[in-house]
């Protein structure tokens, strides 16, 4: 396969007028950014919109990218900001992010296999996890999502969020602890 270079080289190509270069950045990071926005927002439609807006914002601010941070960190920061903005807007409109989406959610997922009881149980657990995650404070949620959905390393999260490594671990621990308590409450 053709070698296209690092993200930073591709961004340089995009800045020098290569129309296809930014498309390559989108192809490389689209899935991971979608995973992040999906984990943060919990709804497919919102996640798709936030992903699109993330890349649009990145394209508009391409000249502002100075190469001090990695392209991945830069994109993550933009995506997290997009999610925060969306959630604020949703709160203003007094929208419940998940309540009306419980039935729709599973249409996006792969078809479930097993007995009706198992499927129902699985769906309930999924709903519980999404609610629990959605209930976490933003600073905890983004660390949990980056770790669980994007499978980034602690160091990558620390670079993307510009946080010390110990803070990332501490936030992840707290996030998992809160999730555990919420899920226990749901099971009871």
């Amino acid at each position, binding site marked *: 396969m053709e070698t296209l270079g690092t993200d930073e080289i591709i961004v340089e190509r995009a800045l020098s007028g290569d129309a296809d270069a930014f498309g390559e950045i989108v192809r490389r990071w*689209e899935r991971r950014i979608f*995973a992040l926005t999906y984990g943060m927002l919990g709804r497919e439609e919102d996640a798709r919109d936030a992903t699109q807006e993330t890349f649009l914002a990145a394209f508009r601010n391409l000249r502002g990218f100075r190469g001090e941070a990695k392209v991945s960190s830069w994109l993550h920061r933009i995506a997290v900001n997009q999610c925060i903005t969306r959630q604020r807007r949703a709160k203003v409109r007094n929208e419940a992010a998940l309540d009306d989406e419980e039935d729709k959610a599973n249409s996006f997922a*792969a078809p479930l296999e097993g007995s009706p009881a198992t499927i129902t149980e699985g769906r309930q657990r*999924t709903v519980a*996890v999404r609610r629990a995650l959605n209930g976490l404070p933003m600073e905890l949620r983004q660390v949990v999502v980056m770790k*669980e959905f994007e499978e980034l390393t*602690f160091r990558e999260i620390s670079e993307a969020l510009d946080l010390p490594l110990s803070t990332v671990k*501490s936030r992840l621990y707290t996030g998992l602890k809160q999730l*555990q308590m919420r*899920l226990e409450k749901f099971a009871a």
Partner: protein
Amino acid sequence: MKEKDLSSTCERTDELVSVLYGEAGERERRDFELHLPQCSNCRAEFAAFAQVRESIGEWRDGALSGFVSAHPAVAPVRKSALAALRQFFDLSPLWLKGAVGFAAAVFCVLAALAVMRSGPAGEPVRVAERNPDAVYTKQDLDRAVQEALAKQSPPAVTPEPENVVQSPTPKSANIAKSEPKARRPFSRAERAQLAADLRLLSSDDESDLDLLDDRINRQR
């Protein structure tokens, strides 16, 4: 603070998280594994967090399995020269195909003619062999040159009788034969003579024509 309230009674939360996600160093992992049997709190949290991760993983796998990229990656395909040529002809219009076919046919005919004209392979051309032992002196070389010049020189021209009317043809033939490369320009006298000859010839022709006319008249 909330984070403080939820913090473990054990101080080794960083190690717990590092081991849980497989990012602990070898030494850190071994220390924590030694600590785990002695700390019920860490043991319980480790098991509970693993279960939380499993639940998130189920949701994640289901949710992301349906993801379809809006920008499908197009892998660059390298074609062979033959495949590229075939594609070119597939896409080219009919007239271009015909023109290329005609050009190919013409090329084949010309190539066949060239092969035929070259003839069958006969005896190979003999090339004079060099005698490395032969030594030529300057005298030998001069003699060889003289002999070659003697062979090339034209035979002696016999003098023609002066009173015989010279026909223009043999004279011109003689001129042509004698040293064609070093031809000197005609002198004035020669030009006059040549003009007279030509006039003589034309008068003969005219008389021939008259005779011919006469013959025709007679036949009538």
